């Protein structure tokens, strides 16, 4: 007798049992394995080329499942950042000397190099806690708290979400809100927007601590199209108010015809910058709208995941993100997952590569490369496997390259031959273990 002969006997067995026991319909069984804890750990290395930012981070996400689809999630992340990041000043034919953010010393960037702030070093610890549970049959809610601390930064956040299933649970509509309050205590105090970089020891342009508030709203729709296709659409709105500057970023003040930085002499007996720089100034409000669409398509075990995001904000930044992942299993326990991501954004309306000496200063100005016009590409490959004890492990290697340009109408004189936008290449390596 063959054993692979498919035979569904459940209904006949139920009938036979009812006649044996003389009972009518019994209540259906409700049994499940005690789900217990689930840990997701990841060690990530992010390294930018040319001695810029290096980040090593450890992430642990612990999830405790309870019966009836209730979940407790606890997260811990520890980051160690080292290296240097572009300060916003322009590269120039001669060396440039800057006052450190602390206001207590100077540092010098050699000629023809993009000035980097090399005192960049930080450790961040972040904690999250979340609870999710269904209620009233078709609804589910989640609440969460988050906190993170760096030596000059404290973030506190809370979020609340609600979702409802429709259409035999093939459609899920969700609504989420999140609030966060961030306190900044910049080293040496926050510089006043557009104030000049001063000599060592002069902190007269510094103000006290700053803060910002962020409110996020997300509306989501998830739709199961058929057993192989899942589609998700999101709209989100985010509003930030308060201190939105990067207190460590500043702009070069340049000559209106040569484009070279304007020289400056420190006060007698003092050391300080030998050129003029002004700290950046951003609006104290920012509103972002974004729409996001994702489709996951299962092709007999191989899963294609495509997504697109459009974001537009009132700083005039528009961005498009296109992302694709393809999970390709081989054997019972292994898979490869190639990943590509393309990102492009237009510059903020107040993005300036520098400030022109003598011109009426703009109200807002920033030369932060992240607010410029750039394209970025990520390509990566992930290899995942199941261990003997059925735990998941994976390694991921990715290459990121960012390529930007200075607005042509802002390029003055000698600037034409110089690096005006600091391009960026980075390697991302991650090891994950889930047990």
């Amino acid at each position, binding site marked *: 007798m063959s054993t692979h002969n498919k035979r569904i006997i*459940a209904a*006949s*067995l139920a009938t036979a049992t009812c*006649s044996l026991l*003389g009972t009518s319909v*019994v209540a*259906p*069984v*409700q*049994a499940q394995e005690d789900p217990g804890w689930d840990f997701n750990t990841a060690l990530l290395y992010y390294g930018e080329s040319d001695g810029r930012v290096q980040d090593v981070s450890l992430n642990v996400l612990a999830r405790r499942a309870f019966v009836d689809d209730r979940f407790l999630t606890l997260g811990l992340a520890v980051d160690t950042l080292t290296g240097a990041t572009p300060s916003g000043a322009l590269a120039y034919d001669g060396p440039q000397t800057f006052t450190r953010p602390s206001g207590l010393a100077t540092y010098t960037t050699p000629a023809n190099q993009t000035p980097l702030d090399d005192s960049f070093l930080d450790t961040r610890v972040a904690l999250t806690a979340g609870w999710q549970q269904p209620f009233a049959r078709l609804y589910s809610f989640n609440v969460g708290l988050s906190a993170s601390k760096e030596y000059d930064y404290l973030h506190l956040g809370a979020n609340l979400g609600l979702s409802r299933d429709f259409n035999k649970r093939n459609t899920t509509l969700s609504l989420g809100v999140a609030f966060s309050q961030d306190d900044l205590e910049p080293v040496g105090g926050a510089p006043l927007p557009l104030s000049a970089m001063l000599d060592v020891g002069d902190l007269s342009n510094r103000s006290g601590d700053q803060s910002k508030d962020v409110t996020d709203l997300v509306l989501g729709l998830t739709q199961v199209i058929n057993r192989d296709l899942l589609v998700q659409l999101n709209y989100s709105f985010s509003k930030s108010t308060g201190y939105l500057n990067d207190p460590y970023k500043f702009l070069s003040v340049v000559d209106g015809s040569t484009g070279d930085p304007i020289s400056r002499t420190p006060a007698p007996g003092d050391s300080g910058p030998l050129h003029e720089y002004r700290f950046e100034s951003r609006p104290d409000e920012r509103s972002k709208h974004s729409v996001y669409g994702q489709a996951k398509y299962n092709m007999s075990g191989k899963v294609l995941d495509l997504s697109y995001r459009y974001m537009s904000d009132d700083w005039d930044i528009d961005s498009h993100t296109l992302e694709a992942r393809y999970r390709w299993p081989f054997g019972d326990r292994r898979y490869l997952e190639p990943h590509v991501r393309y990102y492009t954004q237009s510059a903020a309306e107040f993005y300036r590569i520098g400030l022109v000496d003598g011109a009426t200063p703009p109200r807002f100005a920033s030369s932060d490369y992240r607010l410029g016009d750039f394209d970025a590409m990520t390509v990566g490959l992930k290899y995942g496997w199941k261990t003997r004890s059925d735990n998941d492990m994976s390694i991921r290697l990715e290459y990121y390259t960012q390529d930007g340009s200075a607005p042509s109408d802002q390029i003055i004189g000698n600037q034409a031959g110089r690096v005006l936008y600091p391009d960026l290449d980075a390697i991302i390596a991650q090891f994950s273990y889930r047990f």
Partner: protein
Amino acid sequence: MQSLRSSAIDSEVRQSVRPGATKRDPRLGLAAGHFRGSFNAMGSPCELLLETADEVLAQELLQIVATEAWRVEDKFSRYRSDNVVARINQSNGRPLTVDDETANLLEFAATLYQLSDGRFDITSGVLRKAWLFDGSDRVPDADSIAQIMGTVGWHRVSWRRPEIQLLPGMQIDFGGIGKEYAVDRAAGLVSRRTNCPCLVNFGGDLVAVGGLRHPDGWQVGVETPGSNASSAQKLILLKHGALATSGDSRRFLLKDGIRYGHILDPMSGWPVECAPRSVTVAADSCTQAGMFATLAMLCGKGAEEFLEDQGVRFWCLR
């Protein structure tokens, strides 16, 4: 309410109490806010867990459950010489008229024989004369198996309710149904008396009835036989319905490097190849759960596939 931990289903205990053990003494204890009654029946430790503070009720229900277990055992055990099974097995080819309850069980067995394409067969017990799964290397020779196979097969039985007629030398055995049937019967009697949530557990085959106030349900530990301590126990949360386990890795023969498991294929007379070490199934009733588990074992390497096809929740140990 951490009180609702049922004791683990320990197959070691189950196996150490062999049939014929006569110590039946029912005992009732209060453990962490619920009553736990225990007694022995059908060669197994049995228990009744009750979510009530009413000791008089608990005592009464324990008596009801134990009495029913003993009644089913006395009536259908193949180890007794004075019951209906003995009369059928000693009928020596003569037709015999049986009572309603026995007829219901025979009817059920006949249905299962058909549903399983002959793999579930209450006449296969005689094979145990040749197969003694005692961990030794005494594998019977093919001739003696072939000889016994002449008296195996439900298709050789003439069953026309309420009359049964076996060929001379044939025997029936309700061992594959009896315990689960007793669990469902006992739980039914409890339900008729009270709404109080209870768990009836006869040697690891168990059913939970009555609404439980604790949202997680009863926590049932399933000891996975033969494995080492590390991942040996799975915790199953049972709100309602039944769990039954089939299989025991300690009952086998080992000869010339070949392991002969104790699940016998009634169509060949030989052990089912590649049967799981144990199968635990969740179902609406204990009888259903037990049948799914038994039939899965009989499917050998196709056990998981069979259970998946049935759409039941199961835990299979290889």
